[in-house]
């Protein structure tokens, strides 16, 4: 019987065929054996410019030209390899030190083996993406060599060999092959092929086989200026040695296995969610899980178990006797762990004495409680599904630096305090302590071992001196993941060729005029903040013969310039929104569009997308239509100018009259909205005034509200609502809408109780209407700001609004709680928000102006877009606020002022004061009150903190206090911040 198996003897080509067998587990739980035949070939080029032979088999493009080779013909040399060298890193090298490969100073001419690339993809997708973008960059000269398909470098797996060993062997084989291959070709010295690996076994075998191989650290030392780069090699490589430490030293409980967690989550015994750290207490986290309406608390280092803010974790609920209340104490990491020594592995005392003391307070409080009902369910983290580690901005904790380290250049451990208070401090090993002190630096977390109290990380780069504008701004942008790099060329190529000379075509025959209405004769004007360059919207109104009014809102026609699917669209969808900082604007679209071609500038013709209503004098909408149009704005007003013009009764021209009409209508619209239950919420808003020349902050002003602001706002809301209805009607499954969920009632529990106890006020939260009414009743005769304070606090109990795709929610869920509107979207700011651009495209399709692009119709795509812009939107807000806070601090620099403040939150060892004048809030600790920390009695039921001893004050919630505001540079942390001191209570 002839065998059916493929045999080597019978088939002359058998040597060219290999196979790969593995087990694939699918998401649905299927387990399959997969067999892949691998056809080996010899025409995969080495891609070295030195090599002539491979040119023959290089892949050719359509015109028959071979693709250019990647690796340089004169690669850089090192001390050990003066003739030049190509690098072949193994998977581990990329896993541990991707930052190194992204350096500009070294790491050129790298051969990325296919096996390494594939392994990297399995291990870490983000790192894989970074490597892929490196291979695409032309100047780094990274070449992906398909070693698995080249006959000479293919390595069949030996019997009993582990996958890792086999892959290591494949890497060595490829290195050896490259060496031979290049040696045969050149008459002069061929470059050395150097394998980079941190695996000692692999290095040893390489040495035996006579291959050049280096560990990362050894290699970096050979480089010029290598000392600096050494810091970027993460600490984990030393783990091999450290690992042999006593095994009993683990400080943290072990994580569950992935399958155990998944089973638990499926059966609802464990819960999965995003871990959030409390901003006031680094030892307290919370996690929202779908199974419970209220978040679960995670208290203490051991229960948090190495979770970092933002990680996707799995938790297990603790038994009821361990349920606790959320803390009433401020626990700050810098303060409590200030004097820790980063070198010592403080294993004997894992939960430090001070932390323990802080927890004791908690216990005391829970025990003294008569009512048990307040305790909240707690949980402990049993595993991390996905780390959300990113690069963190921080600075070195001065107190963690030993004296010797400041001089020598030996490697030293220091702590880095991240800017984000929710991130624990990171242990960093560096040789450049003295250089990095007092600088903003970027670090990443590499690992958090069970045996280590703090996560360990490595240095990425320095942003510059603390408190320099450039460093702080970049830090801010990095921290909020804002894409601030200049637009790449591919994006700029999408701009109109005419550049700034682009004009609306004169001839009505031009395709640009197709289906466009000519509205150039209307008296249109725009009203925006002072100095606004990206004018999204303009308005007009005119009386109609029947006594009604025609009102038009005209929005910049961005979708005319940004076509779906091109590079500019892709870039905009990633950026999601324009970010406004105090001194800087990070645009979503290139300047040319944002501030010129799309911007509805006065006196020039521009394309617009218009929403035109017919309204009765009572502001009831009789009819509405949508059209693409061409407009010519008559004037660009600032809010102030418009207000002056309206108030000046001598102005009786048509334009002013039309603004007056708009104003009158807007007031009626607003009233209707409020009647429907729209909330008027509040957040402390201030404006930083800049010195016009140096753009240094000189003063802080609270924003003044003008009628003209709500004029614009009302019509924008109306336009957004009208458009939302229209696109939902046209695309019930895929319309891009914006919703604001009704907040769970429990969110208001705390605030309602505070109001009841302190002021005897009732907060009813049954509906937005009830809430709006009860907020209106929250007034204090003597203190006009009290109402705003309550509104600010109420705002913080709300959910955040979000974009969504209409198919993902049921119609009742579309509701916008804050605006009390059934349906809502964003349409009016396409220059600065990507959602609006999508709404424009959908509306254009709905009115049959153009065919809908597939990407604007695919629900999966839209959901991904929504998810991204929700995150970007939130980050942009946070970045903006952080920027204001920083500049407020700078404006106060060297000044001390006394201001009125209000107590917003009260802890057993401090309280938070909001100063409306500067829109800042800050914590005043008990120990700040007097030289010797006064004793304090905290009445949690009544929100009263009574101090005694060195200083006697009684602080209550909502109380008006007088504080001295100064800026202060914290010596230990090197951070400048606003500091408040209590002058007296009022």
């Amino acid at each position, binding site marked *: 019987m002839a065998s059916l198996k493929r045999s080597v003897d019978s088939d002359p080509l058998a040597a060219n065929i290999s196979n790969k067998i593995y087990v694939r587990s699918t998401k649905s739980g299927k387990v399959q054996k997969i067999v892949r035949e691998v056809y080996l070939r010899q025409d995969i080029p080495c891609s070295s410019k030195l090599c002539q032979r491979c040119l023959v088999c290089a892949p050719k493009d359509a015109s028959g030209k071979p693709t250019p080779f990647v690796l340089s013909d004169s690669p850089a040399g090192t001390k050990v390899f003066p003739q030049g060298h190509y690098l072949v890193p193994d998977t581990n090298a990329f896993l541990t030190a991707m930052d190194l490969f992204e350096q500009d100073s070294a790491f050129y001419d790298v051969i990325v083996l296919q096996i390494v690339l594939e392994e990297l993809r399995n291990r870490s997708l983000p790192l894989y993406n970074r490597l892929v973008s490196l291979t695409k960059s032309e100047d780094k000269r990274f070449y992906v060599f398909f070693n698995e398909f080249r006959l000479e470098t293919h390595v069949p797996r030996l019997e009993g060999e*582990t996958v890792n060993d086999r892959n290591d062997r494949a890497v060595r084989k490829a290195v050896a092959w490259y060496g031979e291959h290049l040696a045969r070709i050149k008459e002069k010295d061929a470059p050395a092929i150097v394998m980079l690996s941190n695996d000692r076994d692999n290095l040893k075998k390489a040495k035996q086989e006579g291959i050049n191989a280096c560990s990362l650290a050894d290699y970096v030392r050979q480089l010029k200026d290598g000392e600096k780069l050494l810091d970027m090699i993460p600490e984990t490589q030393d783990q091999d040695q450290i690992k042999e430490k006593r095994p009993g030293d683990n400080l943290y409980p072990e994580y569950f296995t992935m399958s155990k967690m998944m089973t638990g989550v499926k059966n609802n015994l464990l819960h999965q969610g995003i871990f959030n750290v409390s901003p006031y207490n680094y030892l307290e986290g919370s996690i929202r899980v779908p199974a419970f309406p209220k978040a679960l608390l995670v208290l203490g280092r051991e229960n948090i178990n190495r979770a970092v803010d933002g990680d996707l974790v799995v938790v297990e609920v603790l038994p009821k006797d361990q349920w606790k209340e959320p803390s009433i104490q401020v626990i700050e990491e810098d303060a409590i762990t200030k004097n820790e020594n980063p070198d010592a592995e403080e294993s004997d005392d894992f939960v430090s004495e001070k932390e323990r003391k802080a927890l004791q307070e908690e216990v005391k409080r829970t025990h003294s409680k008569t009512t048990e009902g307040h305790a909240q369910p707690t949980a402990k983290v049993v595993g991390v599904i996905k780390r959300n580690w990113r690069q963190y901005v921080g600075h070195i904790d001065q107190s963690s630096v030993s004296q010797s380290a400041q001089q020598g250049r030996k490697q030293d451990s220091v702590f880095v305090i991240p800017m984000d208070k929710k991130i624990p401090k990171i242990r960093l090993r560096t040789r450049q302590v003295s250089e990095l002190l007092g600088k903003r630096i970027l670090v990443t977390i590499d690992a958090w071992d069970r045996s280590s109290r703090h996560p360990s990380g490595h240095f990425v780069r320095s942003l510059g001196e603390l408190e320099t504008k450039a460093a702080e701004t970049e830090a801010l942008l990095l921290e909020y993941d804002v894409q601030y790099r200049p637009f790449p060329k591919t994006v700029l190529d999408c701009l109109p060729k005419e550049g700034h000379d682009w004009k609306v075509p004169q001839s009505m025959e031009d395709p640009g005029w197709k289906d466009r209405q000519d509205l150039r004769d209307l008296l249109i004007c725009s009203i925006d903040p002072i100095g606004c360059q990206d004018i999204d919207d303009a308005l007009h109104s005119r009386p109609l013969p029947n006594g009604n009014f025609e009102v038009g809102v005209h929005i910049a026609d961005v979708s005319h310039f940004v076509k779906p699917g091109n590079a500019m669209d892709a870039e905009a969808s990633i950026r999601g929104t324009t970010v406004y900082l105090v001194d800087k604007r990070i645009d979503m679209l290139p300047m040319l569009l944002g501030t010129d071609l799309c911007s509805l500038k006065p006196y020039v013709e521009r394309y617009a997308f218009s929403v035109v209503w017919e309204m009765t004098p009572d502001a009831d909408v009789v009819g509405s239509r949508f059209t693409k149009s061409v407009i010519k704005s008559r004037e660009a007003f600032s809010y102030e100018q418009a207000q002056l013009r309206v108030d000046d009764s001598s102005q009786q021209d048509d334009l002013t009259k039309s603004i007056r009409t708009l104003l009158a209508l807007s007031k009626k619209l607003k009233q209707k909205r409020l009647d429907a239950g729209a909330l008027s919420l509040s957040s402390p808003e201030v404006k930083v005034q800049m010195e016009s020349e140096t753009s240094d902050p000189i003063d802080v002003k609270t924003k003044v509200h003008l009628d003209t602001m709500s004029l614009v706002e009302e019509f924008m809301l109306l336009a957004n609502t009208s458009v939302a209805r229209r696109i939902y009607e046209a695309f019930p499954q895929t319309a891009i809408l914006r919703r604001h969920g009704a907040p769970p009632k429990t969110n208001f529990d705390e605030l309602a109780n505070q109001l009841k106890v302190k002021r005897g006020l009732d907060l009813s939260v049954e509906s937005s209407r009830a809430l709006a009414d009860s907020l209106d009743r929250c007034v204090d005769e003597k203190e006009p700001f009290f109402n705003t304070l309550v509104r600010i606090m109420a705002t913080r109990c709300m959910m955040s609004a979000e974009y969504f795709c209409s198919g993902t929610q049921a119609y009742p869920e579309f509701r916008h709680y804050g605006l009390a509107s059934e349906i809502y979207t964003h349409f009016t700011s396409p220059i600065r928000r990507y959602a609006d651009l999508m709404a424009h495209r959908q509306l254009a399709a709905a009115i049959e102006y153009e065919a809908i692009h597939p990407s604007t119709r695919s629900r999966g795509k839209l959901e991904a877009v929504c998810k991204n812009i929700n995150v970007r939107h939130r980050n942009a807000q946070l970045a903006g606020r952080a920027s204001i806070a920083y500049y407020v601090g700078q404006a106060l620099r060297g000044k001390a002022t006394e201001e009125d403040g209000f107590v917003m939150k009260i802890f057993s060892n401090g309280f938070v004061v909001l100063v409306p004048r500067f829109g800042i809030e800050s914590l005043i600790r008990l120990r700040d009150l007097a030289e010797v920390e006064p004793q304090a009695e905290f009445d949690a039921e009544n929100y009263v903190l009574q101090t005694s001893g060195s200083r006697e004050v009684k602080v209550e919630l909502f109380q008006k206090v007088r504080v001295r505001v100064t800026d202060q540079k914290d010596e230990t942390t090197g951070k400048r911040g606003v500091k408040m001191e209590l002058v007296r209570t009022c």
Partner: protein
Amino acid sequence: MTSSQQVLLSPAELSYLHSSLSLTPPIRPDGRSPTQYRPLSAETGILPGTNGSARICFADGTEAIVGVKAEVEKTKRKWDDDAVYTENSHNDDEEQQQDGRGEASNGNGNSDWVELTVEIPGYRDDDPSTVFLAQMLSEALLADGGFIKKLRINRRFHWKLYLDILLISPPLSYPLPLLSLTTHLALLATRLPRLKSEGDEDPFFDDDWAAAPYLYSRNPTTKRIAERPPVTLLVMAVGGNIIFDPSKEELAVADVALAVSIGDATTSQRSQGEDDRMDVDSGNSGGRNLKLLSIRTVDPPSRLTPPGVANAANSAYGHAQVVNTGANQKMPEARQTESEAVEGVWKPPRGGAKAIVMGALVQKVLVRGGVADEVLDALEGVDTS
């Protein structure tokens, strides 16, 4: 197909065959001894996409391949579904639950943990004979409790095996022995992905196929297979003789034909106690412990063969002496069958097999160091790694 196609032999030929098989020792048409199997060649691992596969070629030209595919399936549970895995129950109660409830689940749902299909060229897959073959083969597998236990992953999941049994030559003889042996080899070569998760978690497997263990585990040092899947042997009795692995023609004159499934009882039997070894001749130390798993009588085609006519009754020989009654004239055959057996005249067997014959057949199969042992030894020689 009743055991085999209709045999095109005349009554005289049948009679000749029958009598030569009834001799002591019998003389078989192909010269084999009564206990001798047809020579075969075998190989495993012919289908790379399967979890296990095998192919056997008999010397008479019949050939079969078997592929085994495995899928993870959720175990249906009859009792309260709330009793899902918890940390505590996992640690404390597992033993108890496994003994109590676990057995129940093994008893209930597991006959559908194996799906076995047989394909014979020229026959529909719902043909009664094909179904019967499949039934006989799966019956043997299921009767061996140890086999089903191997498919259990944990309390919530099990492997479902799909056995595809294909005869790829025309059915020149009754294919049962061939199919059974091929299935046996395929199961020996079957590997299942290595389980990485623990306890009653959702199963999670190693993606390295080289690490996948065999369904029938090997001794790590000797590479010997401790336990083996069952084998179904075809045995027939002619006169006083017991003949193994009958050919098509031999089957056509069988008095009784039996399909006997046996299992290797080395490990599992021992734990169950000594009494179960009653079938085994304990005096005979060579060979292995065998256990009987199932017996099926196969309806031999001999029952449908036309009877021969004795010269005495044949009018063509001029014996018209009998004055026939009307009834006898209408049913001459009926009369003849009732007549005594005549030497050299073929008479199809009638009636059931005698208990004593059945007993002898089974005894012969199970005897230590007998045919079954030989067959298993021969199969052991096939490289299944």
